C-alpha cells in the first residue's frame, strides 16, 4: 500500500497480473472499455452512413426519372396543341379550295342555264317549222 502510493505518485501501478502499468488498472479497464464502445459506435455510424447514402442515391434516381417523365408530358401537350392548330390551318385551306370549286360550279351552272335556254329556243324554232309546214 505504501509502495502503491509511492508508485502512484510517480504515476505507476501494479495490476492484478503484477505487470507495471502507467495508468491505474481501473482507469485502464474503463479506458479500454470506452475504446471498444467508441469503436462499435463508429462502426455503427459508418454503417448508418452507408445505408443513408444508398437511400439518397435511390431517391436521386427517382427524382431524375420523375423529371424526364415531366418533360415528356410537357412535350406531348405542346404537340397536341400544335396539331390542333395544324388541323385548323388544313381546314381553312380546304375551305378555300371548296370556295374555289363552288365558284367554278356556279360559273358552269350559269353557262349551262344559258345553253339550256338556247336549246329551248332552238326547239321552239324547229317546232314552228314542223307545225307550219
Amino acid at each position, binding site marked *: 500500500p505504501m509502495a502503491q502510493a509511492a508508485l502512484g505518485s510517480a504515476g505507476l501501478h501494479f495490476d492484478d497480473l503484477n505487470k507495471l502499468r502507467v495508468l491505474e488498472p481501473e482507469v485502464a479497464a474503463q479506458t479500454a472499455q470506452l475504446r471498444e464502445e467508441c469503436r462499435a459506435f463508429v462502426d455503427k455510424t459508418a454503417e448508418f452512413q452507408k445505408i443513408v447514402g444508398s437511400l439518397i442515391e435511390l431517391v436521386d434516381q427517382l427524382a431524375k426519372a420523375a423529371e424526364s417523365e415531366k418533360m415528356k408530358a410537357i412535350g406531348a401537350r405542346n404537340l397536341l396543341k400544335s396539331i390542333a392548330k395544324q388541323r385548323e*390551318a388544313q381546314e*381553312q*385551306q380546304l375551305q*378555300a*379550295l371548296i370556295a*374555289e370549286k363552288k*365558284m367554278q360550279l*356556279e*360559273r*358552269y351552272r*350559269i*353557262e349551262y342555264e*344559258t*345553253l339550256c335556254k*338556247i336549246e329551248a*329556243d*332552238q326547239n321552239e*324554232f324547229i317546232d314552228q317549222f314542223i307545225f307550219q309546214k
Partner: protein
Amino acid sequence: QVWDSFGRALYSSQPQEYPITCIAWAVDGELFAVGSFNTLRLCDKTGWSYALEKPNTGSIFNISWSTDGTQLAGACGNGHVIFAHVVEQRWEWKNFEITLIKRRTMKVHNVINDAVDSLEFRDRVIKASLDYGYLVVSTSLQCYVFSTKNWNTPLIFDLKEGTVSLILQAERHFLLVDGGGLYLYSYEGRLISSPKYPGMRTDTLNAQTVSLSNDTLAVKDKADEKVIYIFEALSGKPLGDGKPLTHKTEIVEIALDQKGLTSERKIAFIDKNRDLYITSVKRFGKEQKIVKIGTMVQSLAWNDTANILCGIQDSRFTVWYYPNTVYVDKDLLPKTLYEKDASEFSKNPQIVCFVGNQITIRRADGSLVHLNVSPYPGILHDYVRASRWADAVRLCRFVKDQTLWACLAAMAVANKDMATAEIAYAAIGEIDKVQYINSIKDLPSKESRMAHMLLFSGNTQEAETLLLQSGLVYQAIQLNINLYNWDRALDLAVKHKTHVDTVLAYRQKFLEDFGKKETNKRFLQYAEGVSV
C-alpha cells in the same frame, strides 16, 4: 382589285384570309398570279380567279413569270423556290372541246360522238388556237396544225424563233406573232407572207390590236395609237397606196369582217372614248368615210360566216345585222339592229366569239354565257351574196320581220337591185323611198339611173362626177341646185357655159321664197349680166 388605264375600278375581289404578299402579270397580259400565305392563285386579266393552289410553303414573297407565259417561279417564306405551270387550258369550237391535260398532252373531245383523241407533243405547249376547223398549236420549237377532220396527221413545221405570243386564225390561213415579227401561214404549213411596218414592235400585239381575215391583216400601231396599218394578207404589202388608216383619237380594239368580197372588206374599231366606228379597208382612190355606229361599246365581234357584227353597248347587247347600211342608207341603220338588255351579263362583259348563230360572252365573274340570234339574217346574207333576190324576198315574206326587210332594202340598194329594194322599202313602210326608186326606174339613161342611185345613198360627190362624166351637165347642175349648193351650181354652169340663167332664176326664186336679199358677190355679178 383591277383598274383600267383610266383609273376606273374594273374588279374587286372578296377579302382573302391572309394578306396578299405579291402579284405578277404574265407576259401577254392575259393572266396574273397572286401569292399569299400558303396560297397561289391564278387570275384572268378581268379579275376573276381561275384556280387556287395551297402549297405548304409559307408566304410567297415574289413571283416571276417565264417569257413564254407558261410557267412561274415563286420565292417562299420557308426558304423554298416553288415552280408552277399553267395547265388545263380549254379551247372550244362548235362540237370540239380540247383540254391541255399535261404540259405536252392535249385531250380532244368531240361531243357529238363522244370520241376522245389524245395529242402528244414533243415539247412544252405554249399557245394554241382552235377555230375554222383547225387547231394550231405552238410549242417551244415547232408549230403543229391539226384539221378537226383528222387528228392523227398533223402538219408540223419548225418555228424560226421560239416564243409565239399570239395565234390568230382566219378561214384560209393563220397568223403567228413572235418576237421577230408577224408570220402568215396557210393551213398547209406554207409561209405566205411576213408583213412589217416601220417601228413595229411585236411584244405589244394582242387579239384586240391585230385582226386577220382572208385577204387582209390589220395591226394597230403602238407608237401612234391613232393609226392602223392595213396589209394585203397574201403579199404582206401595205394595202393600196401604203398610207395607214388614221383616226382622230386613240384606238383601243380593231376587228375585220370575215366574209364577202375583198373590195368590200370592212374594219370596225373602238376608240378611246368607247365609240364604235366602221370604215372600208380600201386605201386607194377615194377613202370611204369613217362612220360611227355605236357609243359606249365595250366589246365587239364579227360573225364567222356572214358580215354581221355584234357588240355590247353600255348595258345593251346589240347586233348590227348589216353594218354596211351606213354607206347605203343611213336612216335604215336603226331598223337593222337587234337589241337585248345586257344587264344580266354584269358590269364588264367580254365577247369571246360569234360562231354561227351563237355568241359566247364572259361575265366579270368568269362564267360564260351563250346567246342565240335569229338565223334569218345569216341566211339573207347568203342569198344576197349569191344574188338570189327572189329567194331573199320570199324569205322576208315568210319571216315577216321588219328588221329583215330593212336589211334586205339596204342590201338591195348596195347591189343596185332596185326592184328588190322597192319591194323591201314598201314592206317597211318607207313610201318616200319607194316613190324615189320608182322615179329612178323611169329615167332615160343608165348613167342617170346610176347617178340617182348614188344620190339615194347620199354619195353626192360621186353622183355629180358620174353625171359630168357622162355629159349630163344639166342634171349635174340641177343636182346642186336641189341641194342648195349655189356656188357649185354656178361654177358648173359657167364652166360648161350653159344654163347660167337657169341657176340664176332658181337662186332668185329661192331668195324670194325666203324673203332674203342677194348677198353672194358672184351672183350679183352675173345677175347684172343676165336679166330674167
